[in-house]
């Protein structure tokens, strides 16, 4: 086959290459800056101690679990604003189930039932999102905003307006234990889910149809893809991943809380956008989202580490979101020409 290769000017090919890997470069740059800063100002290493790495990875877990689902939803041209309180809903559900079974069943079984209940209730919330959007044609922004309120209300009602303490040692081990004292269990769980989601998005029909729907919904429909069912599946998947984040929260803090995921939503969306996904749909990768989530965690942990007031975190993360979209736009304009 003849391949006609357009000669690219060297300048534009540099922008292309940098655009493709800029998030990696930016992550490396942040780590180097914090490392130098930490060494100069108090003679300590930033990255080369286990505690720092564990802290960064633990801070990545919740936003990343939300961001993985959002990656799929956003690639398909949607958005899910309700996931933050899906986390809380799942967290409170798991806590209530475990507490009510505490005296009657062994801890392991109580945890297992709590996990199942949390994932199921979250999937129901996701199913409602999917039905609203795919069947009743409510714009995703509005439908999931409504579900944001409903999940929030239900979670607080289930929690009776307070946090639900859990007295279950297996639950606590899930949130606070580690493998060989090195890899925290929540990080391990997240890592496994990352690998699975990467596989699903890049190698399966489910992933391919997610891109196709985001690229051209009508084309997907005409090609025989069941767009409605697929869209519902995406919101259920996202909710189930949010439930995992809620379960991990309940383990880590040995309590269920309705507000468990409240502050994480924007960071999760930011991670997806920094990772190169387009909010117009059709573009995005799991690996990009992982890098995006790590960038945010490194910024937040790094600023604390070098003693900067935590309020600057918001500014820094906000600036990075804008920067990442600018980089993406300039890359697209070069590729498009």
């Amino acid at each position: 086959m003849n391949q006609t290769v357009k000669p690219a000017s060297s300048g534009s090919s540099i922008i292309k290459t940098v655009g493709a890997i800029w998030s990696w470069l930016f992550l490396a740059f942040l780590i180097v800056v914090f490392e130098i800063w930490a060494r100069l100002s108090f003679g300590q290493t930033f990255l080369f101690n286990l505690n720092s790495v564990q802290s960064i990875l633990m801070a990545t877990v919740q936003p990343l679990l939300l961001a993985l689902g959002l990656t799929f939803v956003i690639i398909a041209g949607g958005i899910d604003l309700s996931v933050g309180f899906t986390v809380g809903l799942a967290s409170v559900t798991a806590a209530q189930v475990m507490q009510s079974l505490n005296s009657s069943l062994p801890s392991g079984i109580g945890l297992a039932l709590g996990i199942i209940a949390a994932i199921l209730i979250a999937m129901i919330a996701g199913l409602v999102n999917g039905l609203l959007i795919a069947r009743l044609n409510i714009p995703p922004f509005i439908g999931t905003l409504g579900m944001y309120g409903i999940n929030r209300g239900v979670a607080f009602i289930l929690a009776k307006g307070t946090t639900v303490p859990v007295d279950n040692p297996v639950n606590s081990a899930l949130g606070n234990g580690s493998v060989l004292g090195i890899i925290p269990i929540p990080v391990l769980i997240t890592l496994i889910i990352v690998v699975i989601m990467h596989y699903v998005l890049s190698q399966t029909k489910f992933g391919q149809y997610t891109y196709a729907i985001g690229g051209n919904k009508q084309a997907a429909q005409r090609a025989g893809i069941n767009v409605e069912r697929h869209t519902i599946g995406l919101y259920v998947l996202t909710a189930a991943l949010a439930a995992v984040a809620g379960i991990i929260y309940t383990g880590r803090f040995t309590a269920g809380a309705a507000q468990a995921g409240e502050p994480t939503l924007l960071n999760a969306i930011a991670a997806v956008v920094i990772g190169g996904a387009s909010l117009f749909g059709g573009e995005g990768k799991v690996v990009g989202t992982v890098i995006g989530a790590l960038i945010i965690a490194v910024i937040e942990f790094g600023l604390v580490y070098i003693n900067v007031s935590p309020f600057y975190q918001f500014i820094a993360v906000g600036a990075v979101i804008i920067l990442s979209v600018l980089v993406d736009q300039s890359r697209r304009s070069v590729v498009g020409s």
Partner: protein
Amino acid sequence: MSANQQPILEGRGLSKRFGGHQALNKVDFQLFPGEVLALAGDNGAGKSTLIKCISGAHLPSEGTVFLEGKPIHITSAQEARTHGIETIYQDLALAENLDVGANVFLGREPMTKMFGFLPMLDRKLMRSASAEVLDTLEIHTRLDKPVRELSGGQKQAVAIGRAIYWKARVLIMDEPTAALGVPEQRKVVELIHRLKSQGVSIIFISHNLIDIFAVADRIMVLRRGELAGERNAKDTNGDEIVKLMVGG
């Protein structure tokens, strides 16, 4: 076309009403193997309604479609496809964020196994098969880029390539040249000639008389939902077709 040949596709008495509006009124048509049939007519003449009744997008209110003499009842685009009838819409229906292979195989992806057990998309097969099919159309382009980066004519070729890869015997093309510049229009005309020489039967809808005369064997003119006339392309001219279109 010899009169005793059996049409590959035939419609008898096709009518379609939308409420009180008669969009199509008792239209008969025949499409013969390896023929290019042009469908001409003004806006609202019923061209689109007619092809939608053939391609499964609409169910005709009355009348029957025959494929090789056998009546068929088509209720969806997928069903039309299983009969070898493919429609290329004006907007092409490509997922422009995906590459050529992904578009040719959209909805029908071949799978292979990763590590011998894990199912995965067979991108290699998708790419090589779409390269082959574009080769038969004599279109050469990068296959690893999103379709968005191709020219209008190349996109048209991808849409056509998808249809012929899936062994379309009847290709319905809705205004394939309308959104293109002049050089690209010529490319599409060439493509239609090539398809015809490969034995594909084509229904070609166009406003453009130059394109119609460049590709068509026969021209069917619709006016207000009815058949206004039918001519062999070599026995008629633009003036006559226009007269049929406007009813002069």
